[in-house]
Structure formats: structure tokens, C-alpha cells
């Protein structure tokens, strides 16, 4: 079994998959962090349609920024450790990915229960949409955070 973490440590100090997770977290935090700050600071639009169109436009911009950070970041870390990037995932990588997804899944489930059951009684449509997006981002951050933690702590499943 190939130990990718050891290869990564030898080549660039940190495993490629851990660096990928850092890039993914950075993309989420920067793009959607800015999105939520802007959305919460803006006053409500004149009509529901204006509010909806503005939400879609801001969400689109945030998504493009996230993809740019992800794409550029991945290119940078790939060029820094090309051999590590080409190594296929081993059992430990798959176990870490599964464990991270399990934690993130529960976060997302809990968030959706709050959003889907409690919010309809005290929030308008765009607020519900933004809350769903917030929990999606939170779950992704938990997923990548768990991945980073597992590599740093040397978790072996």
C-alpha cells in the first residue's frame, strides 16, 4: 500500500490531499463568507423579484470566485508536488474521505432539518434559500476540516 502522506511529507512537507482540502476551505470561506457578509449588509430590495434576482447574481459571483480560487490553488499545489498529486488514493485516503463525509452529512442533515422545518414559519423565501446555502457551506467546511485534522493527527481509520 502506498502511503501518500509520507510521499507528500518528503516532497513538500504536507500531503497533497491535505493541501487540496486547505485550498477548498479557502475558496469556501473567501467566496461564500463575502457573499453572506454582503447579503446580510444589504437592505431588502423593493420587491421579491428584485431580491431574488440580486440573490442569484451575488450567488453566481461568489461561485465563480470560489471556482477560481479552487482552480488556481489546485494548479499551484499540483505544480509544487506533481508526483504526490498523481498518486492514486489509498485505503487510508478513502477512509478519511468517508469519515469526513459522514461528519459533514450529519451537519448538513441537522441544518436542513432546522431550515426545512423551523424557518418556513418565521422567514421569507430568500432567507430560507440563504440559510440552506449557509448549512451547505458549513458542511463542506466540516468535511475539509475533518480531512485536514485526520492527516495532521495521523489518523489511520
Amino acid at each position, binding site marked *: 500500500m502506498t502511503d501518500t502522506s509520507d510521499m507528500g511529507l518528503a516532497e513538500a512537507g504536507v500531503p497533497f490531499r491535505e493541501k487540496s482540502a486547505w485550498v477548498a476551505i479557502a475558496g469556501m470561506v473567501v467566496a461564500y463568507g463575502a457573499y453572506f457578509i454582503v447579503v446580510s449588509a444589504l437592505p431588502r430590495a423593493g420587491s421579491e423579484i428584485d431580491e431574488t434576482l440580486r440573490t442569484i447574481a451575488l450567488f453566481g459571483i461568489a461561485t465563480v470566485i470560489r471556482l477560481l480560487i479552487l482552480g488556481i490553488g489546485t494548479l499551484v499545489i499540483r505544480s509544487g508536488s506533481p508526483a504526490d498529486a498523481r498518486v492514486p488514493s489509498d485505503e487510508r485516503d478513502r477512509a478519511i474521505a468517508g469519515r469526513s463525509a459522514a461528519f459533514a452529512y450529519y451537519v448538513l442533515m441537522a441544518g436542513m432539518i432546522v431550515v426545512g422545518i423551523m*424557518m418556513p414559519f418565521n422567514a421569507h423565501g430568500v432567507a430560507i434559500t440563504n440559510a440552506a446555502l449557509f448549512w451547505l457551506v458549513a458542511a463542506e467546511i466540516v468535511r475539509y476540516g475533518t480531512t485536514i485534522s485526520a492527516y495532521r493527527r495521523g489518523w489511520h481509520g
Partner: protein
Amino acid sequence: MGFREKMLWASAATTVVIWGWYFWGFVSALEAPIFNVGAELGKFLFAVVALVVVQVVAAIVLALSSPADAQAPADDRDREFALVAYRAAFVTLSVLIATLTVAAPMTIATAPAWLAGRSPVLVPIVISNALLVSLVIAELVRSATVLFLYRKGS
């Protein structure tokens, strides 16, 4: 068939039947001229309680029928299958919610057309039910993935 696999079949079957009944009724209620929020809320609460009761009863019956198997801790294979299934369920739920974050604003923007004079309270109720459908589908994907792996691996 092991205890865990039987439990998964029971869980998937009750999920399909009970949530299927609820969402079928919800769509029918949407098509009706008047939408009764109280009645639909009642059906939702009934579905949640029924799901819990049926699954608890199924777990008790299955545990009594094979007590040794029910008490056995999860082995490496069980844990591996569970982790694979979580990944599939998480990806499914994420994709469905990401789709909803785009579709929901469209639903809100076009609400005056499809509401046809009914209460605007329907808009968040429809969105929240779409979220619930996503949760149910993700759980079914999780159960189906583990069941597939058990079948494939047995």
C-alpha cells in the same frame, strides 16, 4: 442475511412508504383549490412519529428474531460500507441542496403565476418540502449504497 442488512431493508421500506404517502398527499394538496396548512402540518408530524414507531418496532422484532446477530458489534466491513455510503449520501444531498439554492429563487420569483391567488405562505412551505425530499432521497441513497455493497460482497 445479517441483522444490519435486515434493518436497512426495514428502514428503506418504511422511508419509501411513509414519506411517499406524505409527499403524495402534499402534491395533491397543492393541486387543490384551497391549501390547508394545519392539515398538512398534521400529516407531516404523523409521518415523523409513524416513521420512528415503525422503525423501533422493526428493530425490536428483528433483534428478538436473531439476538446474537443484533448484539454483534460492527466489523471492519460494516464500517467501510457505512463510510462509502455516507460519501454517496453527502454528495447527493449537497447536489440537491445546491440545485435548490438556484431553483428556489426562481420559484419565489414566479410565485404570483403558480400561486393563482392562493396564500403566499405556500412559497416557503413548498421550498421546505423540497428540502425534506432532498433529505429523504439522500437517506435512501445511503441505505441503497450499503445494501448494494452487502449484496455485492456476500
